[in-house]
């Protein structure tokens, strides 16, 4: 897998959403402010790899994904896909590339049109992209996509409406509608958080199978147990930055950043004897409008020192971590210095 070239490479991505000052605000010349949603995120994804982007609401994980999908415009940074920077491209140039980067959203109850039968829902992307050739070729592609998400035999599902399907089946249909375009990258934004526990693993196993057949998956999730089990690599985001990233098992078993440690400590365990000693951070993710000085995690950090209020740490490999595992914390002796 390491021999695989990088398929998607995001570098120094910055995305900000301006806040409208309103009429009074403009008239009184209040300063223009913006939400600093993503502040210098770099990540890479290979074929056959799942990268899980984890963090609390408002940490910028979904905005990062939307930038990769080119649904929001970055302020700066590059998004190289298959060697080409997507950021400067216009809608016309993006169109053929959009087919290759597809998305599955959290809520299959909202993402599927209730008036479309499964057949039509999965075929529609082909019609929009004018792909798939003749009607019978399209039908074959639709059936193939359903088989790949383990809705088989497809005849059982083709003529059903979304309301006749369970949540897990709907999410599989949504995945099939992405797969029918033969994408290289799939962005999965909280793909199972709306589903019942009993069927989550089924959908995740489908994604895992697609990944092992070469699909690159960027999964957005707040569930570390799922990320640990299904992703090859994990990137932990806090207030628009990646604060730790590395191989999934390394991040979970040997966390470096105090934020990652806290996040892991609050994940409930199955075994009632294995009660965690949660290290609960007080408050919620601070406002992305007023980013704290220095290390942006310092106001909630249990081990912050004076220096942390002034210096903004960069991602580096700590001496206590293996290669490919990085964290952004001033208290970690870096292997690179």
């Amino acid at each position, binding site marked *: 897998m390491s021999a695989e070239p990088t398929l998607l490479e995001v570098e120094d991505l910055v995305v900000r959403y301006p806040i409208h000052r309103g009429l009074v605000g403009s008239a009184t010349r209040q300063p223009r402010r913006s939400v600093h949603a993503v502040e210098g995120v770099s990540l890479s994804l290979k074929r056959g790899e799942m990268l899980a982007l984890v963090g609390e609401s408002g940490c910028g994980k979904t905005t990062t994904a939307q930038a990769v999908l080119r649904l929001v415009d970055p302020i700066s940074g590059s998004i190289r896909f298959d060697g080409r920077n997507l950021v400067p491209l216009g809608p016309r140039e993006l169109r053929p590339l959009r087919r290759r980067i597809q998305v599955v959203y959290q809520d299959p109850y909202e993402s599927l049109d209730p008036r479309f039968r499964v057949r039509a829902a999965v075929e529609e992307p082909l019609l929009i992209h004018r792909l798939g050739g003749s009607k019978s070729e399209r039908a074959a592609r639709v059936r193939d996509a359903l088989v790949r998400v383990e809705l088989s035999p497809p005849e059982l599902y083709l003529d059903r409406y979304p309301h006749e399907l369970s949540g897990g089946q709907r999410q599989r249909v949504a995945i099939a509608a992405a797969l029918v375009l033969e994408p290289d990258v799939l962005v999965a934004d909280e793909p199972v958080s709306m589903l019942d526990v009993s069927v989550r693993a089924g959908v995740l196993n489908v994604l895992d199978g697609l990944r092992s057949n070469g699909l690159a998956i960027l999964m957005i999730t707040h569930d570390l147990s799922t990320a640990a089990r299904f992703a090859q690599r994990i990137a932990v985001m806090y207030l628009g930055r990646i604060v730790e990233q590395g191989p999934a098992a390394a991040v979970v078993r040997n966390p470096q950043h105090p934020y990652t440690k806290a996040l892991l400590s609050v994940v409930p365990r199955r*075994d009632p004897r294995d009660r965690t000693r949660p290290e609960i951070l007080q408050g*919620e993710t601070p406002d992305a409008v007023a980013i704290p000085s220095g290390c942006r995690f310092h106001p909630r950090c249990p081990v912050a020192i004076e220096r942390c209020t002034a210096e903004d740490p960069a991602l580096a490999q700590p001496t206590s971590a293996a290669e490919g595992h990085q964290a952004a914390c001033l208290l970690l002796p870096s292997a690179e210095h």
Partner: protein
Amino acid sequence: MPALPAPGAGTVSAPLLQIEDLHVWFDLDGRGELHAVQGVNLSLEPGERLGLVGESGCGKTTTALAIMGLLPSSASASGRILLEGQDILAGGEEAMRPHRWVDIAIVFQGAMNALNPVRTVGQQIVEALELHNRASGAAARRASGELLESVGIPAGRAARYPHELSGGMRQRSAIAMALACDPKVLIADEPTTALDVMVQAQILELLDGLCKEYGLALILVTHDLPVVSQLCNRCAVMYAGEIVERGPLEAIYHTPGHPYSRMLFAASPDLADIDEPVLSIAGAPPRLDRPIEGCPFRPRCDSAFDACGVRPRLEQLAEDHDAACHLNSRVPA
């Protein structure tokens, strides 16, 4: 765990809350009936924390609403719900009203829906206190501030409207409001489902503290078994409207008496075993608008055998541990 009182014992030793053979039907408007709860038996002791778990549609929320007397008008219920020995179901709304919020309170998943958007959270708690004659005027305002502080909201935030608070703060306000009349039982229906992990941990810590401090008995309704493992001591697993296993959590996790409980645990990924496969329970629960033949879990079960054509009943496996599965009485061949 105190033993169940002997039949005919006085009301003094009756459990705090006892549910006997609870059934709930929903009228499907001319398209028959949906038998949402099919004979639930449960008991709750003071200070006990019970997790009521199962998939969507298994009847856990309906059971909770029945206990609160908040079932919609399309529902009809039978059985007994005894609060300190007194049946609050049979007497209808009149019997229930003096106890709702006073002895039994509930917190729902979407705290936004439980709060009035045009009143500040402080005013809403004052209203609750005044409505139930707990306090009025300045005393009620003071009590409201104290309640908010007890759930971790600075009293200064009492003047905020629900939309000005974060999801976690709203859930805390809803908990404060539920506690206004000092209830003995708190039902929390998916209290953390829509929240982030860190906020979830804060709310679970709060519930844990409140139970300890006020001796509250808790019924935690959720589909999330690990959350139950961390907060509760007993658990009842529901499937297709009935309880299929109940007992101490440790017993249900380590020596499950029902394949559904075992499979539900195996379907929850765990940080301690990240290399272990995560199980998916194929299929879906049966429809509840038609009669169920045999064990309702049989089509999805990995260990079904010929006896499963007959619907199993809850049988005792050990003290305070029951399960409804024929495997437990199967004679080894």
